[in-house]
C-alpha cells in the first residue's frame, strides 16, 4: 500500500480526479466499507485507535472529540459535521493542496466522518479566496450526489447526509471553530464561550464536530487500511502522514506528504525545499505557521511531530513552516505578522483587540527607527499578558508566539533598531 495516501491521487498542474477516476483509484471504498460493514462506533473506535490528531494546528485527538457527540436515538437532531477549510494562517497552504488536488477524497472523508457521528448535515467552510477549490469541490459534491454517495438513503443503507459548501466572507478568526459556527449561522464571527464545546452545543445549538481538511482526508484511509497500517505510516506514537510545507527564501518552496515525525526541520529545508537560496543562511523557522514560536539552529534536528516540536518550545501547528533568512529583518517580519493578527482580531476581548494593535504600533516604531528602550520591555509584557488563558480564544496567544520568540532569539536585532534609530536591513 501507498505511503502517501493523502496525495496519491494528486497530479500537480492537472485537473483533479473525476468521480469515475477517483472510484477507479479505489475511491469511495472506505465509504462502502464503513457504511455497510461497520457501525458508527466502530469507525469512531478505529479513528481513535489510529491516533489521528487534528491537523488544524491544535493536535486534538480526533476520535476523542467524536466520542463527546451524543449518540443514539435520544441524541439531539440534527447533528452536524463541519469541515474547517478556512485556511488563513499565513504560510499555510496544505489544505488548498488537498482541496484542489483531490476534492473527492475530502468529500468521502466528510461522509465517513458524518456516518461515524451520525451527522445529518455537513458543511465545508471554505476560505473566501479559494475560488479554484470552490469550483472543484462544487463539482465533486454534485458528482457525489448524483452517484448516490450523498443525499437520502446513501447506498441503500438508510443513512442520509446533506453536504453543502459555504464560502467564507474572509476572516482569519473563522479558523477558530466556534467563530466558524457563529459565522455559518450568520452571526458575527466571534468565538463562543467554552464550555459547552461544539460536540455538545454547536451549530444552531446542536451537536457539531468541526475538523480540519487534512484531518478529514485521513479518515477514509484509516477505514481502508486499518489501524495498524495507519499507525505504521508515522515515525512517532501518533498515526499517519503529515503534509509538511516550507515557504520563505528556499530554493523549492512547497508541500510534501511525509510520515508524521519522519522529518526534521533541517531535513525539510535541505532535502525537500532544496536548501536556502543564493547563499542565504537560515536564522530560524516558524515551524507550524505564523502563530508558532521560532525555532533556531539549535532546534533544527527536532523531528516534526507534535510532541518533539512542543518540547523544543514551539508547536507543530499546521506543519507548514516559514523560514527566516539572515538577510531579512526579523523585526519587520514579526511586525508584518502582528499587523495581520491585529487586523484579524475579532474585537471581542480586550487583550487581543487592544493589545495586538499596541504591539503593532511598538513594533512599527522600532522598525521605523522610532523605537524606545522601554518598548522592548512593554512588548515582553504584552507577550505574557496576551498568553494562553488571558484571552478569550487562542488567536492572541498564537499571535504573540513569533514575537516572544523573536525577542528571545533575535534580541540584538531589536536593540540595534532602537540604538541606531533605523532598520539595519534597509
Amino acid at each position: 500500500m501507498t505511503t502517501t495516501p493523502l496525495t496519491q491521487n494528486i497530479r500537480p498542474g492537472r485537473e483533479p480526479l473525476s468521480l469515475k477516476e477517483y472510484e477507479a483509484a479505489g475511491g469511495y471504498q472506505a465509504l462502502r466499507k464503513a457504511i455497510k460493514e461497520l457501525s458508527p462506533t466502530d469507525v469512531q473506535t478505529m479513528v481513535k485507535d489510529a491516533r489521528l490528531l487534528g491537523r488544524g494546528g491544535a493536535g486534538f485527538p480526533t476520535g476523542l472529540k467524536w466520542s463527546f457527540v451524543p449518540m443514539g436515538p435520544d441524541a439531539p437532531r440534527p447533528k452536524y459535521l463541519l469541515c474547517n477549510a478556512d485556511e488563513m494562517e499565513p504560510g499555510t497552504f496544505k489544505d488548498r493542496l488537498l482541496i484542489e488536488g483531490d476534492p473527492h477524497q475530502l468529500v468521502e472523508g466528510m461522509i465517513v466522518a458524518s456516518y461515524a457521528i451520525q451527522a445529518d448535515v455537513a458543511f465545508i467552510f471554505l476560505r473566501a479566496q479559494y475560488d479554484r477549490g470552490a469550483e472543484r469541490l462544487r463539482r465533486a459534491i454534485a458528482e457525489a450526489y448524483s452517484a448516490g454517495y450523498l443525499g437520502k438513503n446513501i447506498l441503500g443503507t438508510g443513512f442520509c447526509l446533506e453536504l453543502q459548501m459555504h464560502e467564507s466572507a474572509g476572516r482569519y478568526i473563522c479558523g477558530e471553530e466556534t467563530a466558524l459556527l457563529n459565522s455559518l449561522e450568520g452571526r458575527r464571527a466571534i468565538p463562543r464561550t467554552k464550555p459547552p464545546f461544539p460536540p455538545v452545543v454547536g451549530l444552531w445549538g446542536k451537536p457539531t464536530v468541526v475538523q480540519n481538511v487534512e484531518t478529514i482526508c485521513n479518515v477514509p484511509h484509516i477505514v481502508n487500511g486499518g489501524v495498524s497500517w495507519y499507525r505504521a505510516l508515522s515515525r512517532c506514537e501518533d498515526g499517519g502522514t503529515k503534509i509538511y510545507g516550507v515557504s520563505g527564501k528556499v530554493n523549492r518552496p512547497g508541500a510534501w506528504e511525509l510520515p508524521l515525525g519522519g522529518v526534521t526541520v533541517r531535513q525539510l529545508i535541505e532535502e525537500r525545499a532544496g536548501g536556502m537560496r543564493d547563499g542565504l543562511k537560515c536564522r530560524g523557522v516558524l515551524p507550524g505557521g505564523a502563530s508558532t514560536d521560532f525555532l533556531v539552529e539549535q532546534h533544527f534536528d527536532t523531528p516534526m511531530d507534535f510532541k518533539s516540536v512542543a518540547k523544543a518550545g514551539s508547536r507543530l501547528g499546521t506543519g507548514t513552516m516559514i523560514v527566516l533568512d539572515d538577510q531579512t529583518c526579523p523585526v519587520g517580519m514579526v511586525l508584518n505578522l502582528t499587523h495581520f493578527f491585529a487586523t484579524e482580531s475579532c474585537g471581542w476581548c480586550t487583550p487581543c483587540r487592544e493589545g495586538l494593535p499596541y504591539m503593532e504600533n511598538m513594533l512599527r516604531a522600532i522598525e521605523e527607527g522610532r523605537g524606545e528602550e522601554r518598548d522592548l520591555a512593554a512588548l515582553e509584557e504584552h507577550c505574557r499578558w496576551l498568553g494562553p488563558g488571558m484571552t478569550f480564544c487562542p488567536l492572541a496567544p498564537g499571535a504573540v508566539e513569533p514575537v516572544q520568540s523573536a525577542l528571545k532569539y533575535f534580541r540584538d536585532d531589536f536593540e540595534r533598531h532602537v540604538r541606531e534609530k533605523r532598520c539595519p536591513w534597509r
Partner: protein
Amino acid sequence: MATIHVDGKAYQTRDGENLLDACLSVGLNIPYFCWHPVLGSVGACRQCAVKVFKDAEDKRGMIVMSCMTPVKDGMLVSIDDPDARRFRAQIIEWLMLNHPHDCPVCDEGGECHLQDMTAMTGHDYRRTRFPKRTHRNQDLGPFINHEMNRCIQCYRCVRFYRDYAGGRDLDVFGVHDRVYFGRQADGALESEFSGNLVEVCPTGVFTDKTLKQHYTRKWDLQMAPSVCVHCGLGCNTTPGERYGTLRRIVNRYNPEVNRYFLCDRGRFGYEFVNSEHRLRRTLVDNEPVERSEAIRRVADMVKAGKRVIGIGSPRASLESNFALRQLVGPDRFYQGFGEDERRLMAKIVDILRNGPARTPSLADMEKADAVLVLGEDLTNSAPRMALALRQAVRNKPMKEIAAKVGIPEWSDAAARTAIQDAKGPLFIVAPTGGKLDDAAMATLRCAPNDAARVGFAVAHALNEKVPAVEGLGEEQRALVEAIAQALREAKRPLVVSGPSCNSEDVVEAAANVAWALCEQGKPCELSYVAHECNSIGLALLGGGALEEATAAIDAGQVEAVVILENDLRRRVGQDGRGGRSGHGGSGNDSIAFVLLDCLAGEEKRGVYLPAATFAEGDGILINNEGRAQRFVQVFTTDDDIQESWRWLVDVMVACGRSEAAAWRTHDDIVAAIAQSIDVFGPIPRTAPSADYRFAGQRIPREPHRYSGRTAMRAHVNVSEPKPPEDVDAPMTFTMEGAQTKPDAELTPFFWSPGWNSIQALNKFQEEIGGPLRGGSPGVRLIEPRENATVCFFDRIPPAFQTRAGEWLIVPTRHIFGSEELSVLSPAIAELKTRSHVGMRPEDAETLGLKEGDEVRVELAEDQVSLRLQIRPDLPRGCASMPQFLQHLAGLTLPQWAKIKGK
C-alpha cells in the same frame, strides 16, 4: 452553600455561582465591565481576572476570569495576587489606549464605572505615545447622546438592547480595534428601553440627552427615593434636582419591582415637573393671591354649608385622595375615573382581593414559565412588564436545554447559544399586535369579545366547572388547547390582563383562567395592568364615578367642586358629558371650582391651588400589584406649591375640623388613613417615620461632595439660608447627616466609596441581584383570599361579528402619548404618537385610502378627522384609535364607526 477562601479569608457563597458575583456579594472588590448582574457573564473584557490555586501546595496558581469561573466548595482564590493585579491594570491600560482623557468634559464623569475601575486597579500612567482611534458619533434621537470615542467595547449595550430587551436597531459593527456600537444610520433608537443604555454603559458613550440640556454632575444633585408616576407599575426611581429644576431620573433598584431597568417614559418623562405650564402660585379667578387667602376662600365655601363634591384622581397620592374624601365626605367623593374605568378597576380589585389567585410582583412575573396575556399590548400599557415577560420566556428553555448540558444561568452567551430561538410559552391574545409579540409562542389578534371568549374557553379547558364557550373557530380552538396545555404543565403559570380593551369580559375571562387552575389546587398568578400610578389605590378607596358627579352637577345638586389633580377633559371630554372646560362641569357659572393640580388649565376660573408633583412632595402610590410605595420629596421650592393633601388639610383646619388639626405631617395623615380604612392598615410600614434616625442622624439628600451650597443663592442673599426642615421624612435637604447606607426605602442614591457610578448598588444588596439590605421597599396590600370559594364568571360575550361598512374602533395606547404628564417633556413629545385612525391594509385599499390620508371617522355622537395609519395587525372588522391622545381624549371605546375618505 460553598466555602471559598479569598486571600486567606473564608467566605460563604452559593455553590455554582460565578466567582465574580460571589466575591462582590460578600463585599469584596473586583473590577469588571462586561459582566452585569442581570446580563450575566460573557468573558469579553477580561477585567475581573483573579488567581485560583489547585490546592495549598499550588504556589503558582492560574489566572482566570472570575465571571466565567463557577464557585466550588473549598476553592482557593486570590484577588490580591501580584500577577492578577498586574494583569487587571494591564487591561485598564489597554482600554484607556484609545479612551479620551477628558473626564472633566464628559457627562459620565463623576459617576463613571470606567473611572471607578481605573482607580480600583491603580492604573495611573499613560505609557502609549500612539494616536488614538476616533469614531463618528450618531444622532440617536431625543433620549440618548452618543460619543463612540469613549467606548471600551464591553458589549453590554448590544447585549442589553438586543439580547435582553429585544431591540433590533442598535448593533455592533466593524472588527478588531474599530468595533463600533450604533445604528446602521442616524435615527432615534426604537426600543422603549433605550434609556437603560445610560446605566448599562460603563462609560460615557450613551448618556442621558435630556440631562445634557441642563447638565449637572451626580454629586451636585439633590436626590430622594421616588416612584415613577407614568404608569401603574410603580417602578422605583431616583430623581435628581439642582437649582429648583429636576435634572434627570435614574433607576432605583427594587428587587421586587423594576430591578435594574426602567422604560423610557419613566426615565425621560420627568420634565413636566419643570414645565412652563406648571401652576406655581395660588390663583383666584386667574389672579395671584396669598396662600392663606386662597385657603380661606375654599374654607368659606365649605363652612357656608355649600354642597361641595370632590373629584379624586388615579394619578394623585393616596393621601391626597383620602384628604379630599375626608373634606367632602365619602358620599360626595367621586373617584375621578370615567364610569367604565371605575367599574373595571373596582372589578379588578375585587378579583384580586376576593379570589384565590395571587397578584405577582414584576420579579415574580419574570420567573413565570407559562404566560397568557389577554387584551393588553404591554409594551405600550405597562412597558416594564413587557420587559419582564420577555425574560420569562427564557425560563423553560433555560431549564430544558441549557441546564441539561450543564450551562449555568449566568453564562449568558453560552446559554443563548444553547437555547437559540427556543421560547417558553407566552401567548398574547389582544386586539392589536405589539412589540412583545416576537417573544410569544403564538399570538391571536381579535376583537375584545373574542379575546374574552378565548380566555373563557381556556378556563373551561383547564377546569370543567367553568362554562364552555360555543362556536369557537378552528384556529381559536387549537390555540385554546395549546394555551391550556402550557398553563397546565407549567410550574409557575401566569395570566396577565387589564383594562386596556375597556372590557369587563376580558378582565373576567382572565380571572377565570387563573382561578380554573387555583381551584384545582394549582397556584396560578394573576396580574392586571393599571394605567395610572395610583389607579389601584383609588379603586381601593372607593367612591362614585365621574359621570355620577356630572349628573349631580347637572341636576343642580352641587354648588362647589373640588377637583384633585385630574384633567377631566381626558376622561369625559369628547361626548360633551363633562364639557371641555377643564372643570368637568357643565359650564354653570354658579358653581364654584377649586382645582388642585400641578398644571394650569386653559381657563382659570375658580380657586387654583398649585399641587406638588412627586418631586416636591411626599406620598404613597399603590401599584398594580397592590404594593404601597412611598415617594419622598426631592426638593423644596419658593413657590406656593405643596402636596394636595396639605392644601386640603389646610382647608380643613381653616374650617375648624378638629381631626385635621392633628394632620401636620405625612406620618400623621398616613396613620389616619391606616386607622380609618382597613385595607390601608399596613401603609405606615412603607417607610420609616420622620423621627427615625440612622446613627442618631437624618439621611442627606445630597452627596457629601455637593458643591456650591454657600454660593448658589448668593445672588439673592449672601447669607446662606437655613436649610428647610423635613417634617415628613427622616432626611435633610443638605449634605449633612448620616453617611452610612440607609434603609432601602430611604436610599436617596447609590454611592459607596470607590463606587461612584450606579453600580455602587452592589454595595447595597445582600447579595448581587438579591434583596436590598434592610428589605425591599413597599408593602403588599392585596393578598389572595385563602380557601376562597371560587365563583367563576359565567357571562360569556357573543362572538364578534363584522359589520358591512362599519368598523369596531378598538382603543390603542401608546407609551409616548397616552400618558398626560410625560408628554409635556420635550423629549417624549418629540416621539409621541400622533392622533390617527388605524386600519387594515385590505380595508384601506377597499376605500381607496393610503397611509397618511385624512379620513373622517363617524362615531355615534361625534365625528373626527384623522390621518390614516395602516395597521396590518388589526383583526378583521376592527379599526383602531389611540386613547387619550390630544383631542381624542374622553372617547368611549370600543365603539362602532363609519370611516370615510375625504
